[in-house]
């Protein structure tokens, strides 16, 4: 067989393969509903603590089997630090960052997005099986980046929070908060 002919076969197969892959990808996202974070809203990053819903971070039961997690990332902790939801529930994460860019990865799941100051992230997920996952900040956010983590506990499907209206108790300031002020200067 001539090289020209081989080449045509090889490149046709390449194009075919790429189309199949791309088709699979779009099927996964539009057919199976594996959604990426969309453009849902902006926020003044210096006013997050006084802007709803972020003035009250926590896990909220918002429907029969629906939960909302309002989450904040800041150097170097998540708030809430522990997230508890039942398996099979529809969980919506609504999150943003207070200072620099952070990451939000519930290890072992597809809940994986960036927390960018000024942008609101909204991601939906259903955790199929009970279990415990690390919540990892996977974007470099300063000297204490490797200290920034949390836990996501997926309870049995019939679990409900004791007091569905109250979010988990959370201290306002995390123990590892850096002694830093905006505009550069790190104190002491």
């Amino acid at each position, binding site marked *: 067989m001539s090289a020209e002919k081989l080449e045509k076969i090889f490149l046709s197969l390449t194009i075919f393969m790429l189309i199949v892959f791309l088709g699979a990808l779009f099927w996964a996202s539009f057919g199976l509903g594996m959604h990426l974070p969309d453009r849902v809203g902006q926020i003044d990053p210096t006013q997050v603590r006084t802007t709803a819903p972020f003035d009250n971070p926590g896990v909220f039961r918002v429907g029969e089997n629906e939960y909302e997690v309002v989450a904040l990332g800041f150097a170097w902790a998540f708030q809430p630090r522990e997230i508890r939801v039942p398996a099979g529930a529809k969980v919506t994460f609504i999150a943003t960052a207070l200072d620099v860019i952070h990451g939000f990865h519930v290890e072992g799941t597809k809940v994986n997005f960036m927390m*960018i100051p000024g942008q609101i992230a909204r991601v939906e997920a259903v955790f199929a099986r009970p279990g415990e996952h690390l919540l990892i900040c996977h974007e470099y956010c300063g000297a204490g980046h*490797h200290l920034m983590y949390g836990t996501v506990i997926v309870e049995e499907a019939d679990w409900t929070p004791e007091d569905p209206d109250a979010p988990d108790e959370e201290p306002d300031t995390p123990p590892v908060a850096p002694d830093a002020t905006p*505009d550069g200067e790190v104190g002491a």
Partner: protein
Amino acid sequence: MRTPVVANPAGFVLPDSHRRAILCMIVLSFAALFIGVVNGLGQALNYARVDILQYFPGMRTYYQGLTVHGVVNAIVFTFAFAAGFLSLTTSRALGRLVNDKLLWTIFGTMVLGVLLAGYAIVTGQGSVLYTFYPPLMAHWSFYLGLALLVVSTWITAAALMITLLGWRKDNPGVRIPLMAFISVATYAMWTLASVGIAVSVVGLLIPWSMGLISHSDPLLSRTLFWYSGHPIVYFWLLPAYVSWYTMVPKHAGGLLFSDSLTRVVFIMFLLLSIPTGFHHQYTDPGITVGMKALHAGLTFGIFFPSMVTAFSVMFALEIGGRRRGGTGLVNWFAKLDWGNPALVAQILAMLTFTLGGITGLINASYSMNMSIHNTAWVPGHFHMTVGSAVTMSFMGIAFWLVPYLTRRDLVGRGLALASQWVYFIGVLVMARGLISGGVDGMPRRTNMLEAAYGKPSWELAGMLTGLGGTLMFIGGMLFFAVFAATLFFGRKGGAPTDVPFTVTATPPETRGWQVKLDSFRWWMLAAVVLILIAYGPFLVQYLPASFMSPGYRFY
């Protein structure tokens, strides 16, 4: 009719001042790599829970070291090598020298850039990693240094363009020699691509770090970074492709498949490299899903020219192997010249690149990207692309380039061969560690030794990372030994007197549509249109920018 990829096959002489300028760039490039490889060892061992970074003089944090590793490897090493190597290939192919004053200006700008950025990093005022996302803020000298490094690439682009235009004027109607066309195409692509990073660094980050403007827009700067940050991977890769297309066939004793197809490949990179940047921002809020899907589709498009490259390279190697007596379906591969370090390095580079390409396709599929984004998988992937495919190609090129530039014979051919095999095995082991860890949720860019969390199942992944990284380090040191010994002690006289170049099986046409392939002006215009389609809607939605984040120095 076999046609050489250069204008004049015989009689090319590189004057001494050019020789020295290019040698300076190549030495700068590998000096940067040396520092990067030493830091790399520290990082890989950190994943294996072994702390050697504490013995590095002046190293305050893991992240300071990681900033050094990213900046010197991904920016200094690659930029300096591309400038020297592609200036040479352009000069050689056209038989017309790139202006040597410009060459020295490029070198001087790079050195200044390295000193400025280096000052910030070494003094601990620039531990923001090589992606420098605001609102983490570095000292202004960090940004200014990076800006100068980018400016040096623009001077290179201008220098190559001027040489090409001069040649065209003297040779009206003649096809641009292939080796020059693809060298200039590389810089044409990067010139368009670097606009994003330049706007962000010069327009926003330098004034911000100097206190002239008080706030930054994190998502805008991040988007501008990745506008340049995806095409930069092709700016790293294309100099290696120049070698794979026009030199490797020569080393292997084969020939280049098609002149036109090669040009089409580089034109596709020029067109498609840039409008794909959102595939690095799949998981970012603030960007619509529609834009992300568009970039995903184009990303699959950019895979095509690399598959063409795979075909052409296999064609060249197979012919070479058969000419050396190879028979059958695979035996020709064994018959290749496995004693030539320049060839061996680049064949091994191609093998790792195959794995790099497959993992890259997985990254591009955003349904899978959500599982592995920003995990250790990602460095696992790109050490099989830039960290080995590109790096080993450049090392392979150095095995003839340094002798050519110094007129000294290569010292230690056996060591040179060993360096590549060890590095190759090392990168496979390290990537295996990082990739399996990443699938298991192990994050990248993280000081694992001191992390407040962890999983027992990450231990094996971390150990493989450390083991592979150590092998890479040993391979790298063997290479530097060969490099330095050749530079200082190589025997005068035995070195190659010309750049290796191949001939093409199908020559360039002088009539018809193929002639139009050479008009850079139209391809640049088409590339700009694609960029507007890919980024225009985002900018319309997003602007005006919201400068609301003050700077933070959390390091």
